[in-house]
């Protein structure tokens, strides 16, 4: 700095020496040039020299006066007020007579002179010059700045400055108090041409600033003249509320503390927090978090601290915080109870055992929420959260019995429960008990598997409760009806549907369900052979004009006709389907073919072939878009389950027209497959992907290959995880991101280890998913070591297996000789095994996967084969889908699934 001053001083000295050598005229010219360039000191030097050389002249004095005024302004802007005042005195000494001054000279003077002096000069100046609006405005600014209105008496009454002074004076007084709104009201009487008009504009800007009307504020600020004395404030306002990022503090350096609350800078404080966390500076982090919380939310800094810590905790994966550091910070900033609360909340999200997490969270609420109603609400929500997590993640809990025993009282789980589905159901039921108004609980409740009688009863009682809690809502009635249909309690279902109709007679959902109930009744009568009762029900169903159920009604009417007159199969379609659009027609035809295949006599295979021919003909005539294909192949709504247990028509349609997927453009293929994803058509999808991925560039081929590998894994055709790694290795960074997104999407269709791997886009867990060779360590979902107590005794297990091996050769004889009770007992045992393995409801591919792994253990393979042999003599319709797959001795036939 000193060096710079020294340099400046030397330069100034040089100029002075040069000036001394030139004539007076040149000095004057040089002075003018310095003045124009804002070099006041050099200008003063040059002009003083000129005065010395040339003698006193009015032109030099005028220039010197301007140079002094400029210097005064410069000194004031540097805060050198006494020096500026001295220079001003010198300027006054040099001041020419008013008639020699121009407007700029007067304005320069007015800027820092008292109002009295300014007005005196202004009056003198006005005598020899025409009136100046700009000068009037500057005097008005001066009046505002000094709040000294008395000298105005020197002006005539009609002068704009005096005429409008009364409201202006009152307004300035209000503005001084910060009452900008009232001041603006007072200034309303001031005309636009008044010299006080810019003051009114500024006042309006301030009102808009407090109204946070930033768009209008920017407009008003742009209309305020540039020479307004508070121009720095205006600039600051423009920058801070305008286009510039509010976090950029350089935009409001002088007015930060003046116009904005909080003397500190929250953005900087936040940067300090993150920085100290990254550097593992615990003490600094604690200090910064505490200050940040106080700045953010002075009303409740503790609450803010907790919220900041929670935000850090839930994203600790994304920023580099060492967990131990976080714990230390937590303990330093929060009380023990609050720390435990934060940790419990974090555990609920991240723990692999949701039951243990809620076990540690719920007891803390008693102290936290004294109000019982609120506490119950929160407890209900926490139970719901855990239930949802358990349900969606299919968490593995090897010691579920111990956990359920431990937390049964707290969570409402039956003590020693070993079935995870039952645990989830118990949690939801308990959540409903605590918080019956939480609709989300009921939504989850109806999504849960309800295979056992106990589960159905629990769900029924919860829905009845909901029906009472929400007396105007038809939803619980509709869901109860669906449940009653599952239980074959038709009368109850119809009664509850009638109640739904009373609650919401015009609700489309109610109309659809009522129409569907009549279709269910018609189907029942059709299968019982009471054909005369079928048509009236279907006609009544048609009367509801339910768009959703129309294809089903048409298909059932066609089926009735077909049963009555199978020879007319071809005409039946023409007769029953024309009212629908072509897509619905094809879907209904597909259903009809499926129903006809399952019906048996009098419908023979030749009749079915006639139907199939018709279906193929109609499908060939269709020209389809991607959207049409999605509509065509989508499953039927879940409400149709009582009449269509599988709810899918896609398989038969793809069998009849295998090129359907070929219509879909490359770019739409993966999104379409994602939408249509269903176990029954995975083979068709895989074929299409296999065909397309060849001869494609990387951008298209890699996602297709990734999809294909996942399909192969799901269907049990390949467990080669190296393929995932190969695909990822081939991808560049943007493609990796795309694959990650696809992986997350696909995880919705998967379960178990594959789901978790797809979710995290990390496939190392798949490399050795079944690491333990012994059966007790089988990592199936919810597999409990205790469940296989019998197998723990090697002698006993060997005995069972030996016994089964011994009976194998005589199996045919045994099977033929089994009575009905023995067969039922065998079915029960197989179903029990299905439940133990927790494979009920899993996608077919996954059951195959689990079955294959069980069969890889020789003793288990023998056991399954034995059971399978015996089951040949039982009625296969008694067995569940899962049991059938588990006992199948061969892999699925290629024809059925059309795998690779």
């Amino acid at each position, binding site marked *: 700095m000193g060096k710079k001053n020294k340099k400046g001083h030397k330069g100034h000295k040089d100029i002075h020496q040069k000036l001394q050598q030139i004539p007076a005229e040149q000095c004057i010219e040089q002075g003018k040039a310095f003045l124009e360039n804002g070099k006041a000191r050099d200008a003063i030097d040059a002009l003083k020299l000129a005065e010395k050389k040339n003698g006193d002249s009015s032109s030099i004095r005028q220039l010197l006066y301007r140079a002094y005024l400029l210097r005064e302004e410069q000194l004031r802007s540097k805060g050198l007020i006494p020096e500026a005042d001295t220079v001003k005195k010198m300027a006054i000494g040099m001041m020419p007579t008013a008639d020699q001054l121009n407007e700029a000279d007067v304005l320069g003077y007015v800027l*820092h002179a008292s109002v009295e002096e300014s007005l005196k000069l202004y009056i003198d100046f006005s005598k020899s010059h025409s009136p100046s609006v700009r000068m009037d405005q500057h005097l008005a600014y001066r009046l505002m*700045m000094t709040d000294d209105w008395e000298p105005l008496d020197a002006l005539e009454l009609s002068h704009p400055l005096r005429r409008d002074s009364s409201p202006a004076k009152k307004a300035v007084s209000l503005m001084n108090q910060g009452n900008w709104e009232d001041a603006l009201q007072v200034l309303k009487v001031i005309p636009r041409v008044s010299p006080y008009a810019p003051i009114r504009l500024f006042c309006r800007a301030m009102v808009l600033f407090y109204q*946070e009307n930033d768009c209008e504020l920017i407009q008003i600020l742009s209309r305020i003249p540039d020479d307004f*004395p508070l121009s720095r404030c205006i600039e600051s306002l423009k920058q801070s509320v305008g286009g510039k990022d509010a976090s950029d503090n350089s935009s409001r350096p*002088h007015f930060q503390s003046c*116009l904005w609350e909080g003397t500190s800078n929250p953005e900087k404080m*936040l940067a300090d927090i993150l920085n100290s966390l990254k550097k593992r500076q615990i003490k600094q982090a604690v200090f910064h978090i505490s200050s940040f919380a106080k700045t953010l939310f002075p009303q409740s800094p503790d609450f803010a601290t907790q919220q900041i810590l929670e935000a850090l905790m839930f994203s600790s994966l994304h920023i580099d915080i060492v967990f131990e550091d976080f714990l230390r910070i937590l303990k330093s900033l929060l009380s023990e109870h609050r720390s435990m609360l934060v940790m419990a909340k974090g555990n609920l999200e991240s723990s692999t055992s949701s039951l243990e997490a809620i076990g540690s969270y719920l007891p803390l*609420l008693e102290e936290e929420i004294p109000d019982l109603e609120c506490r119950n609400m929160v407890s209900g*929500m926490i139970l719901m959260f855990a239930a949802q997590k358990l349900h969606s993640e299919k968490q593995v809990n090897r010691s579920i019995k111990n956990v359920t025993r431990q937390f049964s009282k707290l969570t409402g789980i039956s003590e020693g429960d070993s079935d995870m589905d039952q645990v989830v159901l118990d949690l939801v039921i308990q959540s409903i008990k605590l918080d019956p108004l939480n609709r989300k609980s009921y939504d989850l409740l109806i999504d849960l598997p309800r295979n056992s009688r106990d589960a159905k009863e629990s769900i029924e009682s919860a829905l009845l409760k909901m029906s009472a809690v929400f007396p105007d809502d038809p939803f619980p009635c509709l869901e109860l009806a669906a449940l009653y249909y599952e239980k074959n309690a038709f009368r109850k279902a119809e009664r509850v549907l009638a109640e739904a109709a009373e609650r919401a007679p015009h609700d489309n959902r109610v109309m659809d369900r009522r129409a569907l109930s009549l279709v269910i009744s018609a189907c029942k009568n059709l299968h019982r052979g009471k054909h005369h009762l079928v048509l009236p029900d279907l006609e009544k169903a048609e009367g509801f004009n339910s768009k959703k159920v129309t294809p089903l009604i048409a298909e059932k009417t066609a089926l009735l006709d077909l049963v009555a007159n199978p020879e007319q199969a071809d005409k039946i379609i023409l007769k029953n389907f024309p009212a629908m659009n072509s897509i619905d027609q094809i879907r209904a035809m597909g259903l009809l073919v499926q129903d006809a295949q399952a019906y048996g006599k009098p419908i023979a295979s030749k009749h079915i072939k006639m139907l199939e021919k018709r279906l193929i003909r109609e499908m060939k005539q269709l020209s389809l878009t991607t959207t049409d294909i999605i509509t065509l192949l989508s499953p039927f709504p879940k409400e149709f389950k009582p009449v269509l247990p599988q709810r899918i028509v896609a398989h038969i349609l793809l069998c009849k027209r295998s090129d359907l997927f070929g219509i879909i453009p490359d770019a739409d293929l993966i999104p379409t497959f994602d939408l249509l994803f269903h176990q029954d058509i995975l083979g068709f999808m895989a074929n299409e992907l296999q065909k397309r991925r060849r001869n494609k560039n990387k951008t298209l081929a890699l996602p297709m290959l990734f999809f294909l590998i996942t399909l192969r894994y799901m269907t049990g055709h390949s467990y080669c995880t190296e393929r995932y790694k190969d695909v990822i290795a081939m991808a560049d960074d943007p493609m990796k991101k795309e694959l990650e997104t696809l992986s997350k999407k696909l995880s919705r269709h998967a379960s178990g280890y594959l789901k978790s791997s797809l979710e995290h886009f990390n496939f190392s867990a798949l490399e050795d998913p079944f690491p333990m060779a012994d059966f007790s360590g089988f990592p199936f979902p919810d597999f409990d070591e205790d469940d296989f107590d019998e197998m723990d005794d090697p002698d006993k297990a060997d005995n069972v297996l030996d016994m089964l091996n011994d009976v194998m050769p005589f199996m045919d004889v045994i099977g033929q000789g089994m009575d009905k009770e023995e067969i039922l007992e065998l079915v029960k045992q197989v179903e029990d095994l299905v439940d133990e393995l927790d494979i009920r409801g899993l996608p077919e591919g996954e059951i195959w996967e689990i079955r294959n792994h069980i069969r890889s253990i020789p003793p288990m393979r023998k056991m399954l084969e034995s059971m399978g042999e015996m089951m040949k003599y039982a009625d296969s319709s008694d067995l569940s889908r899962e049991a059938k797959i588990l006992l199948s001795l061969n892999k699925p036939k290629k024809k059925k699934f059309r795998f690779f």
Partner: protein
Amino acid sequence: MLIHYIVLGVTPEASDEVIRTRYLEQVKRHTPEKDPVRFQEITAAYEASKTIRKRLASRYLPPEKTIDVEAALFALARAVSGKRRRVGLRELIRESGHKAASGTGV
């Protein structure tokens, strides 16, 4: 949750009624035509905190989505930076570095 309270200018203990009143005050001031971004922020804050159920859920349940902590905390910092301080003309003049209202010149 904190950001919603900051945007609406309420405390965590505020009742449904207080929150609604503050919301209406704010949207009157920041209409969608004049200040669409601010209007959206206020509406989002109100929607997320208008009932005791929502407030309790966001206070005691883990967040539904993975949060980007830096973005979330910077949003908080920005929200608090937006609070405007009521100031008088004299203070602005002083802050601008102009000579105080002495009424006298040199």
